[in-house]
């Protein structure tokens, strides 16, 4: 028996789950990272200046993106599997001829997909916040602000 269909079913079910409840899965990282970028990146980070030519934003953006990817991919597997067990619909999987490694793979890849999507959302937020920062810097401080973040963001996206 091919396990592609069971694997795909679990994966699609997982993606559908976190997309359906986007206010719980995608919105919170967007808000928390936006706040983080605004408070630490924009207000405090702008006062730090550059170190070896890299601004504070250059320094924190990749870390915050990866932190979101890792924590949310992990959280997705944990919360989804826990609710599956708590609501007892894990029995649907246990009764079916699906080996444990297929179930595990489906949930892990579901978590990876959520991590990647959250990473994308955080990256977009970073770009938006950065553009604000750039424009504020440009208008308030004139041409003195040569922001390395442009270089950083363009390198990654």
């Amino acid at each position: 028996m091919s396990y592609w269909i069971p694997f795909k079913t679990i994966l699609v079910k997982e993606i559908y789950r976190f997309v359906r409840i986007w206010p719980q899965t995608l919105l919170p990282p967007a808000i928390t990272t936006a706040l983080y970028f605004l408070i630490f990146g924009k207000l405090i980070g702008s006062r730090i200046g550059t170190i070896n030519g890299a601004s504070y934003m250059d320094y924190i953006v990749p870390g915050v993106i990866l932190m979101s990817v890792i924590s949310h991919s992990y959280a997705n597997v944990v919360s989804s599997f826990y609710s599956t067990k708590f609501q007892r619909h894990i029995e649907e999987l246990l009764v079916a001829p699906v080996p444990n490694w297929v179930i595990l793979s489906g949930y892990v890849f579901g978590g990876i997909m959520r991590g990647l999507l959250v990473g994308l959302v955080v990256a977009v937020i970073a770009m938006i916040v950065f553009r604000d920062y750039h424009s504020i810097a440009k208008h308030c401080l004139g041409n003195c602000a040569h922001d390395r973040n442009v270089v950083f963001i363009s390198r990654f996206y």
Partner: protein
Amino acid sequence: MNALSIRNLRKTYANGFEALKGINLDVEAGDFFALLGPNGAGKSTAISIISSLTNQTSGTVSIFGHDLKKQRNQAKTCLGLVPQEVNFNQFDTVMAILLNQAGYYGTPKKLALERAEYYLKHMDLWDKRHTVSRRLSGGMKRRVMIARAMIHAPKLLILDEPTAGVDIEIRRSMWKMMQEVNQQGTTIILTTHYLEEAESLCRNIAIIDQGLIVEHSSMADLLARLHIDHFVLDLQHPLTVAPTIAGCHIDLTDSKTLSVSVPKEIGLNHLFSELTQQNIQVASLKNRTNRLEQLFMDLVEAKTTGGQP
């Protein structure tokens, strides 16, 4: 070929409780089989082991010749389970529940869609296919679970109290549906506390009590063992004292109601002729208890007291 074959199945839980004490059971392919027993007898434990939700302590289970331990996937493919309690994702739509289950069994999407349409229409749920399942009524949820169990076309369907808590109209429609499924060749094992349901639907029966099979025979053989029938007679005129008829036990429940136990060898004709002689007019008659219910109580009580049924 046996649809289900259980040999010396034992289950002892971690706390030392012995739920199954070595049961042996055979269910023939195509049968409509009743597995009865009081609460805590071991029915659900046996079903959990058959459906791989619990591991047995010892013994073997084979489904259509596939050993549950050695050929687990083949055995699981033959089996459909309708559990006692709702266990689907309450946030999924009815269609999603069915398609996901089909996917777990490796059913291609096109075939799964065809089957889902067939079963949902058959169970009067087609209009609810896009409804989130938590918004369904209790009866609808039960029917969703039956449709879900049928979506991969199992050869053996286990129904663990499928009609518990549903109204009589839905219960009757579910009986009709179960009979149709059975006529199409699916073997059905039914556990229920409605013994009328088991009596009218099932051909063979096993009664399990305190982890042991106390009866395993055909329904007809079992019912033939009843020696005494119990009736309630509504009288046209009130009485003050219960009449006396040799061989029958008669109680006056109230002034216009008699509770009568009639041995088979005496029969109803004799009872009525005696009552007529005593100038007692009977307005109507009904069975006091379901026949199987009486047998069930006799068997379980005999097991508890160590006597003969």
